[in-house]
């Protein structure tokens, strides 16, 4: 840490008003198996430093993975130059120094001792289990294991000095089921802080069942119907909502929640939370990318918009406190982002929700929602959907090649039931959702 401090001094001596250094050190492993053979194995040590400088309220940033002294000097000078040509903004600047509380649960010290052979063994077993799961499963498209150990150090000219370590490991499987020239795919995953936390059987069952039940899918006729969203789809809607529930979007006038604070924006049963200290989440840390302690923010409570997510810049602009939502790597400036973002559990079981549907659609996969299918500004969305039809509370046929469309704000008000099976599913960040039911969405098919 002392070594890093000398670069802060160097920056201040060379014209910086304020300076911040973010140092990141990671160990990575990635394994893929195919047909019971290791197909690819990646291992790496990587480190880098990002330097943020403020001069006359202008911000400059530069980063490097080359940590030689010459290179660091060059990068600091580059950041200083960038800060000088950046126009001033009165809200720019570092946060005041705050104390943070360590979260030891996010780092499993034993994990580093796990033998790589054990990881390969687990993965081979996962592939084999999937292959033998059901004769309709004809291909294991991908079976992979990944892990990461990260150490972060953050230090700035306002006296903040912090560091923490965290780790995770992950097993994922992607399979194909085939019947009469038709192929359907399904994915499953499991993650934790130690290899012993991983539940490969559940991941395999999830992947295989998805692929199998989707076989023989047909479009249904265009109609309005009740729709039950699987958790894996729910998290994608959470992702879309999160882009609107942050202060930056509101301040820049591109939020669905602009001018809606303290008003009813969703049905009474809907509560949404961003929690940077949620132990089971993968985005958990004691402090954020600017050195602000992480916190739990109740964004929507019983249908009412209660708060937004803030970083230091947007908080200064709004005259409030940062919620610790500045996220980053050494390659980027901090930016306002979610930590662990989830829809809170309801009271019903998933089964009772499915049973309550007389004629509706259980959506298991959507395509295009996070790749442009939802307009983050108007809230209109139209996405491809795959899943199963429900008749009198029972699954009937598989459904594919249909789209579902509506408006996300209207949908929030039409969430009539929420199950009690919330889970963080880290596919696109650390988002969580229970199963939930929405009434009155448009399905277009044949």
């Amino acid at each position: 840490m002392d070594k890093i401090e000398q670069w802060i001094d160097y920056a201040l001596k060379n014209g910086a008003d304020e300076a911040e250094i973010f140092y990141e050190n990671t160990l990575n492993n990635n394994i893929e198996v195919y047909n019971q053979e290791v197909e690819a194995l990646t291992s790496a040590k990587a480190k880098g430093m990002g330097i943020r400088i403020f001069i006359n309220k202008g911000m400059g940033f530069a980063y490097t993975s080359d940590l030689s002294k010459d290179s660091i000097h060059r990068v600091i000078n580059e950041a200083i130059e960038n800060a000088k040509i950046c126009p001033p903004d009165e809200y720019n600047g570092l946060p005041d120094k705050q104390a943070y509380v360590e979260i030891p649960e996010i780092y499993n010290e034993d994990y580093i001792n796990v033998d790589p052979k054990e990881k390969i063994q687990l993965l081979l077993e996962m592939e084999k289990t999937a292959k033998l799961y059901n004769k309709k499963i004809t291909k294991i498209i991908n079976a992979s294991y990944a892990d990461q150990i990260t150490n972060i150090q953050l230090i700035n000219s306002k006296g903040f000095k912090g560091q923490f370590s965290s780790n995770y490991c992950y097993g994922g499987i992607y399979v194909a089921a085939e019947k009469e020239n038709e192929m359907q795919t399904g994915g499953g995953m499991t993650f934790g802080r130690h290899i012993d936390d991983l539940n490969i059987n559940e991941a395999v069952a999830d992947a295989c069942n998805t692929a199998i039940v989707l076989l023989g899918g047909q479009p249904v006729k265009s109609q309005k119907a009740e729709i039950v969203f699987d958790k894996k789809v729910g998290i994608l809607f959470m992702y879309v909502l999160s882009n609107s529930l942050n202060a930056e979007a509101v301040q820049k006038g591109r939020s669905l929640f602009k001018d809606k604070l303290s008003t009813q924006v969703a049905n009474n049963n809907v509560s949404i939370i961003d929690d940077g200290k949620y132990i089971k989440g993968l985005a958990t840390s004691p402090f954020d990318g600017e050195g602000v302690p992480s916190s739990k923010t109740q964004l929507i409570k019983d249908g009412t918009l209660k708060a937004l997510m803030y970083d230091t810049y947007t908080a200064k602009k709004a005259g409030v406190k940062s919620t610790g939502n500045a996220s980053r790597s050494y390659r980027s400036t901090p930016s306002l982002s979610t930590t662990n973002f989830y829809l809170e559990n309801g009271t019903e079981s998933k089964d009772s929700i499915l049973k309550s549907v007389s004629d509706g659609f259980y959506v298991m996969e959507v395509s295009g929602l996070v790749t442009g299918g939802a307009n983050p500004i108007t809230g209109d969305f139209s996405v491809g959907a795959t899943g199963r039809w429900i008749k009198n509370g029972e699954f009937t046929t598989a459904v594919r090649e249909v789209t579902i469309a509506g408006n996300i704000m209207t949908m929030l008000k039409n969430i009539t039931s929420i199950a009690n099976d919330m889970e963080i599913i880290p596919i696109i960040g650390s988002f969580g959702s229970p199963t939930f039911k929405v009434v009155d969405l448009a399905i277009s098919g044949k």
Partner: protein
Amino acid sequence: MYMLFYIGGIILLEQELCQKVIAKALETGGDFAEIYYENKIRQAITCEDGKVERIITGYDLGVGIRIIHGKTISYAYTDDVSEAALLETAIIAGSAAKHQNNTTIIDLTKRKYNPLHVIKISPNQVDKAEKVKWVLAADSAARNYSTSIKQVMVGYNDSIQKIQIANSNGLFVEDERVLSRLSVQSIAIKNDVMQTGYYGPGKHMGSELFQEITPESIGVEAARIAVTMLDAKPAPSGSLPVVISNGFGGVLFHEACGHPLEADAIQKGTSVYKDLVGKQVASSLLTAIDSSIVPNGWGSYNIDDEGQKAQSTVLIKDGILQDYMYDYKQAKEAGRMSTGNGRRMSYQHMPLPRMTNTYIENGKSNPNDIISSTKEGFFAKRLSGGQVNPATGDFTFVVSEGYMIKNGKLAEPVRGATLIGNGPEIMKRIDMIGNDLELAPGMCGKSGQNIPAGVGQPTLRLTECTIGGTEIKGGK
């Protein structure tokens, strides 16, 4: 002791050091070893709310070492390019191979390729203040287009990537890639309606790109789309003849047909195009190409990320499948040459078969005739992105600018439309192809690696495609 040395201010690895590292990597018995060295400088500027927000300079330096041993690839990378760190990384990469003492003598011969893509103004020769001016010019051009434009976001990016590749087959090559891009997203608001418009041209080119395409014109185009869509009606749902405009419309072919034509999908049997070379897979009007030699194309280069020379590959000719896209490993397993499609995001990633600039060739029709011969249909002027299941070819694409076609004429704009269907099926339904081929830049993601890929097509017509809209047309 081997030292790093400088060429034009950029550090490269010495030949002898490469030889030593490759030999070390093969000590435990791999069949093939490779060093990929990357040194990249990039600059990014973002502007929103009329204010320059971030000015970023980044230096990425590192080495990836790959060993192929039977069917197994092991890969290790490091950002420490000292001799000691490289030798250690080589040992880590080699540890996956079975132990047997192997002494390999590597004889590297430097090969040089003539650069195919002329760079006139290197971005690092341009003052940052000048780049800031371009960003602000694009911003004000968009704002001045209409009073309905309420928000504008501008992103400027350039990068100079120097790579060097050495492998145990004796290959020793280097390349430099220069990319420039300026993109504008605008938001128009009128009454209660908000619409967005996006335009972001980019090329394998230096700063001369912004003389060819001015920052102002980029801002104006992004604003025009948003303002046009303000008056759009909700899109209908149903099945109609669909005309897709030239340029970025090619993303449909890229996603729905290009990915299944990458050799790893073929090898794993997850592609609908497996075993179909020589067979009719699309309309006989369709010829499709993947080419990394398109001059200054967004996905172009001189050599791929495995050192294979850039080339143009005919994928489909007159509707008949010709070939797939290969990297070194897939080609070796298939007993043939790579097609120069081995690409990777950075030294931290192992190469995979990937598209470069993938496009549908010009046809014979005049684009105007395509519209005028369509009695009732839908015109997708701009697609903004999409998703496809590579195993099934099922796709969903978002139409960011769309119009109805009535009696052979463009009618009212419609919003919120998506095109859905099955890629290989759709390719059989092409009944007219225009002569106005245009390429557009995109970022393509696969296995967690994002790389620049060009897409393109002339204006073309599908006899029928499902449109998912927000308006329900009474169920049949």
